[in-house]
């Protein structure tokens, strides 16, 4: 099955570690891959999903481009893809 890398920053890195991979069926959406990932992690569902919906505070990148949460269910992943998740930023 295709391997998707999930990269996490800040609070999510502390909870899940920086780099993870998840194996998902061919053609799984970004949302589907995140759901599969969340289920492998302690507190993953609580942290990332609320009532089955991706948390609105989570910022997503797909292959190094930011994507809108709403598009996570329509973008289909392929082997070697990278999804990045992070909480709101606070630099400066």
């Amino acid at each position, binding site marked *: 099955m295709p391997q998707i890398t999930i990269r996490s920053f*800040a*609070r999510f890195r*502390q909870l899940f570690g920086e780099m993870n991979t998840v194996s998902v069926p061919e053609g799984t959406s970004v949302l589907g891959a995140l759901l599969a990932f969340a289920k492998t992690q302690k507190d993953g569902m609580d942290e990332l999903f609320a009532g089955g919906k991706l948390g609105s505070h989570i*910022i997503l990148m797909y292959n190094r481009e930011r994507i809108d949460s709403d598009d996570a269910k329509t973008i289909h992943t392929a082997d070697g893809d990278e999804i990045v998740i*992070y909480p*709101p*930023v*606070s*630099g*400066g």
Partner: protein
Amino acid sequence: MVLALQKEDIDIGALISASRTNNDGAQIVFIGCVRDDGNMDALEIEAFVPVAEKDLADIAAEAMERFSLNSVDIVHRYGRLALGETIVVILVGAGHRPEAYEGSRFIIEKLKEKVPIWKQELSGNARGEWVH
């Protein structure tokens, strides 16, 4: 134009001299510092470096264009920073001061909104709150 994420401290005087040209009527330097809010004795700054570098370049280009700036330099640090240390330096040069002030403010607001950098409070060896 210097755009960098780095662990090392920033030589602000050198940045100012290097950026200055005869077209500058005003330079504005914004410096973000580790402020003592009473709950911590250091900050740990985390950055997604390659994306942050690209974002800084995009923000600098947008600011140059929108505010007719002569130059933009942005240097942001990451790693562990003690109270009073420099976190970020944003330097803009412009012909006149209104553009310089507005361009400077635009850059720091965009940086805080968008660039993947996070701050966590440290107290001794204990990790505290993520700053928001």
